[in-house]
């Protein structure tokens, strides 16, 4: 199972931003009670800090103090803060302007993600066209200030609970899928045992006295812990059990099988019979296999050898995963008009139909007299 490890369940890094954010949004939503805004702003700041802490520590990689990290945190903080202001504002015109700031911050994130064309298109279409049209409609329709509908909200308790429970499950899911810390520590542990000159006494079962030679020998506590750690890491990196006999020959399942055999070998004989050479070979197998599987899973595998997968043999394609270059505007045009030609024609047709539809809907009916 992919999510078999229990080391990172619902913890404070997830709970703090979710609970504080839920409280802040619930408090700031329009209601018939007049609430002072100071409390909402304070809890909202706590939630933002919690979100930043989750981003810094949740996925196990260290955040370097670079310009990219600063820009990422600045843009995402702006986007989240102004999104909150947008959904809680009493004045629709202010909501529209907050949405403009959210769109601009998202465009900054697009630029960090090497999407310059998308950034320009979003600024022109969203911040330029759509929001200005919204402002026109607001000015046409609401000339007498905030209406009673803007000062009330519908089922705020249930909506906030539903939304933030969804957010908590998304965050826990992301943390479980992208956090490789326990696999990494297992690899380091196995490698340490494999490289050591002699095996620590704590791992080796004490030899039984002469008279009951035939009785089963228990594993030591340290050895049990070691094997448990290896099993957890293996459950984390293996995706599914092989279904057919053919599946067993795939690189993936072969690696999993090798690691399982090594763990079983350690458990059944090597730790009990003080076989140092077998312990070191098995630990070496475990460390190598886990490293390879983790790299295949998180996309950093370098495919220097031929891999057998369900779709046939995968040949090596070069060193490491490809990096998307930042100057990719001409490439996006090529992709649009070669791979997605039908889709782009359909999108054009959709725009035409929408234009005709908008004109047809908003036409004033002539009074039949």
């Amino acid at each position, binding site marked *: 199972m992919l999510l078999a490890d229990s080391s990172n369940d619902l913890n404070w890094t997830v709970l703090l931003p979710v609970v504080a954010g839920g409280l802040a949004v619930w408090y700031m939503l329009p209601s018939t009670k007049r609430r002072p805004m100071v409390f909402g702003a304070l809890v909202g700041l706590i939630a933002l800090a919690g979100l930043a802490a989750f981003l810094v520590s949740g996925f196990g990689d260290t955040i370097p103090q670079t310009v990219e990290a600063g820009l990422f945190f600045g843009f995402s903080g702006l986007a989240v803060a102004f999104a909150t202001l947008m959904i809680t504002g009493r004045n629709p015109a202010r909501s529209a302007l907050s949405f403009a700031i959210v769109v601009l911050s998202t465009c900054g994130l697009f630029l960090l993600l090497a999407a310059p064309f998308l950034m320009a298109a979003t600024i022109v279409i969203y911040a330029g066209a759509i929001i200005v049209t919204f402002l026109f409609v607001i000015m046409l329709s609401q000339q007498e200030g905030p209406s009673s509908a803007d000062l*009330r909200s*519908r089922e705020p308790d249930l909506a906030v609970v539903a939304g933030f429970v969804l957010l908590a499950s998304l965050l826990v899911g992301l943390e479980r899928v992208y956090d490789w810390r326990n696999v990494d520590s297992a690899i380091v542990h196995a490698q340490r045992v494999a490289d050591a000159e002699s095996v620590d006494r704590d791992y080796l079962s004490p030899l039984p006295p002469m008279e009951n030679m035939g009785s089963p020998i228990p594993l030591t506590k340290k050895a049990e812990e070691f094997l448990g750690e290896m099993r957890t890491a293996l459950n984390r990196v293996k995706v599914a059990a092989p279904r057919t006999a053919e599946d067993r020959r795939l690189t993936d399942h072969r690696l999993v099988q090798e690691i399982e055999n090594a763990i079983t070998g350690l458990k059944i004989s090597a730790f009990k019979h003080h076989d140092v050479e077998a312990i070191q070979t098995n630990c070496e197998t475990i460390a190598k296999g886990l490293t390879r599987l983790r790299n295949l899973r998180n996309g950093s595998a370098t495919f220097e050898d031929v891999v057998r997968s369900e779709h046939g043999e995968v040949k090596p394609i070069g060193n490491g995963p490809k990096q998307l270059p930042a100057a990719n505007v001409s490439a996006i045009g090529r992709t649009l008009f070669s791979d997605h030609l039908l889709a782009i024609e359909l999108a054009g047709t959709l725009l035409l139909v929408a234009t005709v539809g908008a004109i047809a809907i908003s036409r004033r009916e002539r009074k039949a007299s």
Partner: protein
Amino acid sequence: MISLPHYLTVGAVLFVLGLIGFLTRRNLIVMFLSAELMLQGVALNFVAFSRAHGNLHGQVFALFIIAVAACEAGIALAMFLMLYRKKRSLDISLWQALRDPGLEETRDLVPLPAEPKEEPLPVLSVSGIEPARKERDHA
């Protein structure tokens, strides 16, 4: 390093905020803006995956999202204008005759609190000599 899950987290937060806004607010325009906010979160996910996989298909998807959002905005604003002409308000609960059968009508039972009285602006009393007016000012 700032990697894929960081952007996915921000996308998830934007999506959830848009969801809450869509469920709670009663102004048609704010509801529509909330739906657009959800689309922004999804577009951010697409672009982040595009970057992580090293190809451009995610960005193409995000472009289609923008195209569909523009169509949606055109149609929705035309409809809002028509709805506004009928009821002279953008309140969504004026249209609750369209709700599912068997659902109760929502009524605003709690009255809104009174607006706080605004302090009247200070008025300076007239002092000094009033300048003489010309005859044609009175005429």
